[in-house]
């Protein structure tokens, strides 16, 4: 055995013998291993930060792509069901995407309508709550009036701020609409050509690794579908919990608001898995 391999077997290197003064204790064998682990961890963190920053920089495309990919994986079986009923893949994928968009629109409309229909009732409750809080906390009426006057005098500033918020709100809405349209288109193509796309990606891989890679994609799809089922269960539980408070006294919101809250908590996947008779 050479000097170097002998030194390595004892946990030190040949350079240790050259640099270590005679009589000095041998370095601990686990120190290089800890060093390797520490530097590996640093490298992993740096790589994660770089990847996260890169995704953040292109989030306008990555977000719709991610949501579309996840929804396409979850709803692919629905396209399969439609195809078995004689629909062409193009039509089946289109119907699923339109169904999802209709469901999403329905939930948003129901939520907004539920809140706006009860705006007066909510406003009255807020006024009453303010009165109760003033009485309970024994707030000085003069201070309250002064605060109200200060608020009224600040109205122009508030209005200016409101306009700024309105403009930024409009641009947010435009961004949201663009994202939804992009996600719908990506989802449509993934639903229609997902299987072919998967085959062509797998075909690019080294033949020795092809089966492994294909099985990995299959497992990832299974994980995403299981996740969809888990989210559906959670949505159902949240719906039940949020729908129960009307029975308690002191909560006077009528059913549309609670219904819409529960619907909003329920993801589109719930409707799909309910329709598919899951579990």
């Amino acid at each position, binding site marked *: 055995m050479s000097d170097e391999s002998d030194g390595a077997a004892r946990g030190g290197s040949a350079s240790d013998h050259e640099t270590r003064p005679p009589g000095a204790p041998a370095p601990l064998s686990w120190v290089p291993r800890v060093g390797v682990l520490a*530097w590996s961890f640093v490298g992993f963190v740096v790589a994660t930060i770089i990847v996260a920053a890169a995704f953040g920089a292109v989030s306008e495309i990555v*977000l719709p792509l991610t949501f579309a990919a*996840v929804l396409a994986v979850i709803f692919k079986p629905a396209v399969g069901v439609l195809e078995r009923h004689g629909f062409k893949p193009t039509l089946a994928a289109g119907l699923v995407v339109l169904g999802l968009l209709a469901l999403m629109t329905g939930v948003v409309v129901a939520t907004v309508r539920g809140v706006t229909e009860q705006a007066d009732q909510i406003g009255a*409750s*807020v006024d009453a709550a303010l009165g*109760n809080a003033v009485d309970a906390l024994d707030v000085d009426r003069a201070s309250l009036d002064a605060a109200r006057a200060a608020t009224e005098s600040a109205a122009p500033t508030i209005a200016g701020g409101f306009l700024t918020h309105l403009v930024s709100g409009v641009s947010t809405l435009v961004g949201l609409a663009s994202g939804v349209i992009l996600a719908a288109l990506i989802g449509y193509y993934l639903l229609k050509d997902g299987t072919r796309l998967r085959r062509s990606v797998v075909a690019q891989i080294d033949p020795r690794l092809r089966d492994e890679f294909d099985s990995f994609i299959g497992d990832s799809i299974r*994980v995403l579908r*299981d*996740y969809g089922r888990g989210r559906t269960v959670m949505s159902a539980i949240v719906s039940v919990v949020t729908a129960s408070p009307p029975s*308690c006294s002191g909560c006077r919101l009528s059913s549309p608001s609670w219904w819409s809250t529960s619907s909003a908590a329920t993801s589109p996947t719930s409707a799909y898995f309910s329709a598919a008779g899951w579990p």
Partner: protein
Amino acid sequence: MIIALGDGGLSKAAIMLVVVLAANLVLENFVEPKVMGRTLDIHPLIVLIVTALGGLLGGIVGLMLAVPVTVIAGDAITRLRSRGLIAQVADRAKPTLRSVLD
């Protein structure tokens, strides 16, 4: 809670606050990790930690995708390890790192 305060006073608002907080705590920290852990066959504690980290790093998207991404990454690591690829990479990296450390 504000509506309960307006309609029923402080006591009912306090009850409502407790109900809302308890429901949120139980749902987010106990029921969700349990359900997700059972569905995806991972420990609820991992679900809890990964979801919190995902929320911190990636906002709402991170919150939603943290668990499936973790499970998929775990699967990928298991596959790479079973093929000995991680050991190969570590063996190749060790001499360089050792020389850097020395």
